[in-house]
């Protein structure tokens, strides 16, 4: 039977995502954010979510909408506050959302560790700071390192540029950002793409996320504009 990871709708792409899950969401600033899929999760009604994402959303759509609607119990990110992050800021000020702040390089390295079967790693980042509080510290070659653990999710929502039916992905410019590491680190990786191409059309030298990391692909609404 041919492998076909393409699903015909956002609703099918996000089916099975349920309350209490941990969800990774790709994007850095407004580049590479899977807004259609986030809207799909909103429409599902899932709540009590833990979200892992670099930022905490801006404007009124996408991640900001998910947070603003009270569906997110906890967010793990590196830089929540930005111009336009009012919906997050308000929830935070009211004590209605938990924040786990992770240095940005540690955030993606923890995802990679999860995807790569690494049980933990020592990083110099954050040594001697508040963000290393309570973590195991080790001197290696005269330098302080912090032990960091893998970061997994139940689901990764990723935006990419193009995919084929096996789920191979290419990205667009800085929209690549967290997509490839999140795709590795989740039990279920769901991708929205601008374009679906025939198998064999993506140059094997150029594929960024090989198909093994991808479970479902759906075509995004290329016309829709989001306030993010």
């Amino acid at each position: 039977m041919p492998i076909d990871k393409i699903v015909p709708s956002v609703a099918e792409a996000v089916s099975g995502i349920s309350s209490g899950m941990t969800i990774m969401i790709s994007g850095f600033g407004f580049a590479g954010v899977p807004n259609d899929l986030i809207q799909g999760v909103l429409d599902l009604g899932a709540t009590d979510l833990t979200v892992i994402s670099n930022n905490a959303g801006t404007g009124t759509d996408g991640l900001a909408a998910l947070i603003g609607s009270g569906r997110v119990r906890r967010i793990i990110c590196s830089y929540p506050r930005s111009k336009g992050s009012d919906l997050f800021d308000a929830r935070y000020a009211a004590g209605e959302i938990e924040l786990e702040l992770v240095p940005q390089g540690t955030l993606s390295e923890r995802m990679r560790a999860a995807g790569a079967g690494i049980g933990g790693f020592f990083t110099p980042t954050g040594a001697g700071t508040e963000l290393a509080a309570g973590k195991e510290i080790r001197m290696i070659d005269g330098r302080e390192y912090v032990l960091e653990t893998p970061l997994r999710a139940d689901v990764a929502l990723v935006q990419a540029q193009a995919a084929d039916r096996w789920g191979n992905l290419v990205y667009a410019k800085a929209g690549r950002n967290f997509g490839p590491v999140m795709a590795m680190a989740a039990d279920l990786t769901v991708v929205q793409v601008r374009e679906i191409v025939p198998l064999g059309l993506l140059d094997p030298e150029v594929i960024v996320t090989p198909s093994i990391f991808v479970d479902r692909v759906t075509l995004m609404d290329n016309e829709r504009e989001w306030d993010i």
Partner: protein
Amino acid sequence: MSTALAESVTKLSRLDIARRAAAMIPDGSYVNLGIGIPTLAANVMPAGREIVLHSENGILGVGPAPAEKDRDRDLINASKEYVTLLPGGAYFVHSDAFVMIRGGHLDLALLGAFEVAANGDLANWTTADRRFPPGVGGAMDLAAGAKAIWVLTDHVTKKGEPKIVNACRLPLTAKGVVKRIFTDLALIDVEPRGLVVREMAPGLTLEALQAVTEPALILAQDWREMVVPAT
């Protein structure tokens, strides 16, 4: 221990062991083929099904061997044999090949073995002969990382000694990982209750199979004669 089998037994060839195993791989699986008999499976994958073969030097979507005139020195598998790439295949850095392996993304690895123990322990990286350099390659990563390990091997050594043993004498590759064993004589599942014989080569009896196998074998109620599928 060295036991001659009755002449009426039809042992499987190495390629037929590969064929038998390949036929059991579920559709859509991501599979690594180790050195030895497993590598042969790339050339006998069942027609009309999509299975994605992984090679730890950095390839997904490995296809069958090319004609001699189409050989490309940049396109070899981890056994250093010329291969092709299927549509949908991809190349990547070696460390990402092992992200796939160690990270549990491979559905299955087919590996060779020096010894397999009744509890699923695997020894396939170094012999007792210390004059020869050992070579671990990706065996330990595959054994530790793939969701399932099937072993493809001759049933006995060249000297006729059992390779399926009570406990490995050779240094281990990994503990308790082997789920299924395909040999020239039988298809055996490694289960909590013991080694369960699912299929035997034509003409073989359980007694004869047991005579070349150290651990006690359990014959499955629904055991069948081994049939090598056409490819």
